[in-house]
């Protein structure tokens, strides 16, 4: 019997199937790529507006009567008098002198709404810093515009929030070159705010810093110690097995469950304060611990036995061998794992919601016991805000977060390459 012809007859169909299968494979890989690129592109385009801000140039009079101070030049102006100046009124006055045609109450109101609420504080700070400005020439200052004006001017997109009268004001400012877009430094130097044009991520950045600091201080020593024990000293018994199973399972427990643990144990049982980096850091260290233990064990295991034998052969104790020879050799691997663990902790959100790190906090935290929020939670908070300008801020914060994660992972890869070259 000759099967050759039978096989030949089926070949065409089988090769078509082969091709289709390979195509599915390629399509699967590509769909992952496409999604990743689309995600990054979408977030980047959404983020771009957040990095610039619209500013309006105002002439602020500095004579005493405009400032509402006593016109008697012999009276010296003390700090109290400066603090008592009606700065908001001053900003309004400057606006009115810019647009004398706005006389009706409604028009004036619309006019005032061009400016950000931060203008008066900026002015105040300026005069407090240099009281000599008083009695001087009128000041020309670029003040931040309101976020609706910002969106309208920057993106040429009119929401219903900008009235026809305001459009005219802005056009007139434009012809006089009194409106511009500038780099939005405040995004990096301010804390959170209800006003998008004043909101920044400094508070969240520092919150993340303090939280990660606690995480690192707890999880790195504990993780290394646990890895050393399990890899070098632990006897082969049930307890050791149980510890190992525990570590593997903890690595896969949803992070929100750790949040419940943090709430029940740290806050309710130990009475630690809510919303603080200390508690957040402790919870995150429990989450990252399995990662650090597993990678540290792998690094310790990869130290060649010849090195151990050499150390033991010279009469070092087991403990000395581990701390003088094995651990230094394994350190790059341990650190790689620690960085990856920290990157994981930096992106973690859900457990921090549980322990109250979602509060609206304007102040920049100065330590691990100050109320704070962290970058991912800031993203969560802003993503929920109704103002459209917050969408851009959210996307920009995501870019900052991703930049940090990229740097950390790049560091981990560099360290690993260095580690492998050493071998």
């Amino acid at each position, binding site marked *: *019997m000759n*099967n*050759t012809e*039978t*096989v*030949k007859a*089926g*070949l065409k169909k*089988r090769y078509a199937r082969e091709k289709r299968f390979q195509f599915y494979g390629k399509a699967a890989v590509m769909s992952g790529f496409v999604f990743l690129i689309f995600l990054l592109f979408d977030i980047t385009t959404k983020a771009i507006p957040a990095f610039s801000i619209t500013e309006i140039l105002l002439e602020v009079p500095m004579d005493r009567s405009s400032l509402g101070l006593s016109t008697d030049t012999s009276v010296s102006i003390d700090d109290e008098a400066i603090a008592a100046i009606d700065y908001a009124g001053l900003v309004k006055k400057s606006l009115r002198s810019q647009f004398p045609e706005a006389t009706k109450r409604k028009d004036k109101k619309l006019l005032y709404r061009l400016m950000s609420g931060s203008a008066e504080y900026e002015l105040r700070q300026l005069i407090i810093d240099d009281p000599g400005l008083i009695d001087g020439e009128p000041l020309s200052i670029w003040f931040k515009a309101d976020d609706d004006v910002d969106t309208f001017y920057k993106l040429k997109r009119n929401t219903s929030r900008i009235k026809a009268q305001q459009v005219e004001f802005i056009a007139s400012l434009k012809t006089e070159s009194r409106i511009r877009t500038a780099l939005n430094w405040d995004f990096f130097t301010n804390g959170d705010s209800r006003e998008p044009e004043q909101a920044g991520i400094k508070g969240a950045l520092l919150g993340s810093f303090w939280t990660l600091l606690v995480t690192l201080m707890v999880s790195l020593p504990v993780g290394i110690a646990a890895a050393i024990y399990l890899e070098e000293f632990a006897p082969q018994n049930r307890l050791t097995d149980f510890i190992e199973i525990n570590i593997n399972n903890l690595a896969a427990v949803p992070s929100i469950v750790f949040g419940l643990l943090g709430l029940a144990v740290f806050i309710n049982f130990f009475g630690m304060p809510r919303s603080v980096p200390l508690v957040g850091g402790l919870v995150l260290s429990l989450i990252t611990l399995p990662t650090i233990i597993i990678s540290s064990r792998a690094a310790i295991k990869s130290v060649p036995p010849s090195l151990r034998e050499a150390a033991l052969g010279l009469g070092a104790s087991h403990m000395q061998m581990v701390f003088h020879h094995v651990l230094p050799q394994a350190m790059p691997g341990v650190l790689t794992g620690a960085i990856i663990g920290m990157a994981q902790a930096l992106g973690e959100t859900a457990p921090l919601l549980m322990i109250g790190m979602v509060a609206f906090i304007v102040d920049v935290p100065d330590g691990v016991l100050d109320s704070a929020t962290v970058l991912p939670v800031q993203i969560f908070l802003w993503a929920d805000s109704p103002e459209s300008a917050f969408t851009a801020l959210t996307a920009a914060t995501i870019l900052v977060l991703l930049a940090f994660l990229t740097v950390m992972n790049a560091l981990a890869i560099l360290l690993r390459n260095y580690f492998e070259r050493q071998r």
Partner: protein
Amino acid sequence: MQQRNKKTASPSLSLGNFASTIGENLLNDAKISTRDVNVSYGDKQAIYDASLDIGRNQVIALIGPSGCGKSTFLRCLNRMNDTIGICKVSGKLMLDGEDIYAKKMDPVLLRARVGMVFQKPNPFPKSIYDNVAYGPRIHGLARSNAEVDEIVITSLEKAGLFEEVKDRLNAPGTSLSGGQQQRLCIARTIAVSPEVILMDEPASALDPIATAIIEELIDELRQNYTIVIVTHSMQQAARVSQRTAYFHMGRIVEVGDTNRIFTNPRHEMTENYITGKFG
């Protein structure tokens, strides 16, 4: 005859002695014929100018020390080397006058005609039945389940395994003993009804009794198939083959009737090898 130890038998000293093959390497009406085959893996050449004919319905044994290229040569015959990206084959290899490495030669069709049995038994993680039915099914050789049954049973019978497994055809193939697994792999190959069966040291992982059974089986299979067997055991080559080719450092040193090769080798390296001076 000079006394040579292992060291002095190195190729650098004796390359000139086996630059071309000695003996009856060419035949009339060969099943497979190869001419000036060169094979290399990247920069490393594994086969030099091999020319060998393989006769119909007979067993040819490829012997030689390890690393001599006999397995590489075997894998060229059904293009299993294709799976290794860096492997390059040049020269002429013909199966019944068709070029094995021609563009229009389909490797799938070729492998259906030239089957292969490996050194380590490698049954699929399926039942005994499914292992044997695998080939006929993918090639569409059976039109009905009854036909598949028939093919499976005849193949197992031909491989001398049917009596041992007929009660547990649904047991996993891996549950068999090593020798049984290897016969299962042979049955699997037979099920596709190939013209040639390549065997790469099929008994090297088996105990002596299983080896003896496999050797008997090979002798029976000769009636219907052309068999090329690579072996490191000279006794096995002497027992099962009609012709023998001796490989050394990527070259075919000597080819001839098995009886002649083992009783009257013409090349001194062949002689050194079969008398156990090295290898």
